[in-house]
């Protein structure tokens, strides 16, 4: 896997990485500092906190964790006057199938994340931040802990930082295996030592978050954009990529491509360019049957739908999907989409926290019915049954996991109904079709 740009550049957007530069040993604090690291934080400390927030707001940075919510706006939700403690949670749970970008930041540029965390805390007047990292990333947790110890050692984190009034402690909190803990309120419950159950909203975290105190939750990649904005200014940043969803974005390409990996690029790059110019095209020059553009929860797109679709919020929405985590899963013309969808259904069934009946029961039913298709035992009415179950989960649960389980089903049936019908026909004729994945 590569975290750098491929060498082939013909027809590909020219780009110098900002989040994952190719600088060797950038994970070491000395190297980071000698390449201008922590200068953005120092610059921020000379500004008023609200000026920092304003800079992020004007930059139009939108969250990279899936929802594309404007980051600066989210920061303004934090109360300025409060007698309570305030917290920042940095979401590094990274468990959405097809997503493997934050891991690159932990490994190759951990200080960018620490610097971003410090700036965010300064902007919102937060003295304590928790970086929540999934337990499976034990190796990367150790890397982050080393980087954090170095940052403490250099006096960038801790009490009265760089001789200023601002104090900030950053702690790493290790998860223990639960997709749902990437949901912001489940993440907070997990830090509190609870099961990872999402909370009913409102109240929203900015009013009632960790231990009932005002809390902001931002994704690892989102926070890593902050030093870049402060260093270069919002005007410079907002000109990168798609105007309404600007900045660098880490696109993780997996599945049927010659060069899978995480590629940093400006937002707004056409999907087909990402697949062919960045990720080296499809093995055997096969056609593309389908693409899941932004992690498993985003709606699948047909291969013949991809022309002109770009990796930014507006373009993806117009195409009937979403940027999500920019985890692009490519499936060639020989892919068994029923098998893919059945596996995804099993995932959501396994990961449903079990609080809400529609999700707890519905995800299991979806998986069971899909297994009938997988085994060529489905009836024609099972297609509508799947749709019915999905529609009854969507919007009827505390958190978005229910929606995330429903959307892939709905989109797959809408866009590939023939694949389902074929299974029924074959089931009835008793001649299973052999398809490779």
């Amino acid at each position, binding site marked *: 896997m590569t975290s750098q740009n491929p060498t082939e550049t013909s027809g590909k957007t020219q780009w110098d990485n900002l989040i994952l530069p190719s600088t060797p040993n950038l994970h070491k604090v000395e190297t980071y500092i000698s390449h201008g690291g922590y200068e953005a934080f120092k610059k921020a400390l000379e500004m008023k906190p609200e000026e920092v927030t304003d800079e992020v707001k004007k930059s139009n940075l939108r969250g990279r964790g899936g929802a594309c919510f404007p980051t600066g706006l989210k920061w303004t939700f934090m109360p300025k006057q409060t007698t309570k403690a305030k917290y920042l949670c940095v979401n590094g749970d990274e468990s959405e199938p*097809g997503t493997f970008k934050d891991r690159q930041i932990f490994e190759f540029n951990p200080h960018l994340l620490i610097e971003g965390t410090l700036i965010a805390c300064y902007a919102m007047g937060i003295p304590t931040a928790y970086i929540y990292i999934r337990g499976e990333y034990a190796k990367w947790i150790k890397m982050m802990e080393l980087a954090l110890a170095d940052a403490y050692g250099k006096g960038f984190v801790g009490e009265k930082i760089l001789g200023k009034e601002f104090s900030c402690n950053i702690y790493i909190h290790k998860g223990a295996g639960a*997709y749902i803990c990437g949901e912001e309120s489940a993440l907070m419950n997990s830090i509190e030592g*609870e099961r990872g159950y999402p909370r009913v909203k409102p109240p929203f975290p900015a009013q009632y978050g960790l231990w009932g105190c005002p809390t902001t939750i931002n994704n690892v990649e989102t926070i890593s954009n902050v030093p870049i904005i402060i260093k270069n200014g919002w005007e410079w940043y907002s000109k990168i990529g798609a105007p309404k969803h600007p900045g660098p974005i880490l696109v993780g390409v997996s599945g049927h491509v010659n060069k899978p990996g995480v590629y940093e690029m400006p937002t707004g790059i056409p999907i087909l360019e990402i697949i062919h110019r960045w990720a080296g095209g499809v093995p055997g020059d096969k056609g593309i049957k389908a693409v899941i553009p932004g992690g498993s929860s985003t709606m699948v797109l047909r291969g013949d739908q991809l022309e002109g679709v770009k990796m930014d919020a507006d373009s993806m929405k117009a195409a009937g999907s979403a940027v999500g985590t920019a985890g692009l899963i490519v499936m060639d013309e020989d892919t068994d989409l029923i098998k893919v969808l059945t596996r995804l259904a099993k995932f959501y069934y396994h990961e449903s926290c079990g609080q809400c009946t529609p999700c707890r029961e519905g995800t299991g039913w979806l998986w069971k019915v899909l297994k009938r298709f997988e085994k060529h035992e489905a009836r024609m009415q099972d297609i509508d049954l799947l749709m019915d179950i999905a529609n009854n989960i969507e919007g009827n649960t505390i958190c978005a996991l229910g929606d995330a389980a429903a959307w892939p089903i709905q989109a797959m049936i809408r866009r590939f109904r023939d694949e389902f019908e074929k299974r029924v026909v074959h089931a009835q004729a008793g001649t299973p079709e052999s398809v490779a994945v």
Partner: protein
Amino acid sequence: MLNESNKQKLEELRKRYPTSQALVLPVLWMVQEQEGYISEDAMKYVAAILNVSYGHILGVVTFYTMFHSKPLGSHHIEVCTNVSCMLRGCDKIVEHLENKLGITFGETSKDKKWTLSEAECLGSCGTAPMLAIADEYYESLTPQKVDEILERLRP
């Protein structure tokens, strides 16, 4: 139950959180790393030192997939079978492992050396197929690579 160094670590960690309940996950991690799994007695112990109920601890241990309330084999092999790995041929890796070890998902070998588990996406989609053993990721797997890994770990 906790050894001296973990006890010290616990006291350090207490400063990081306003409640002792927040230490449930960190302490369960310590116990599991120390003992290999989290027994009923261990859960009662954790409940006592953190001043939360045993039921709460049991609830947490059974909720998170990485906590184990029963001992596993010396090497816990977790193979990702989610979509990105599936598209890159994880089925062959699973089949190969099952043949080599004589166990299927959810089983531990009779000599207690190996436990095989199916894992959800572990964030190695760009280097699929993959498996994880303890804290280590083994990526871009082929059956040959699997053989090498097993050979290296075989005591």
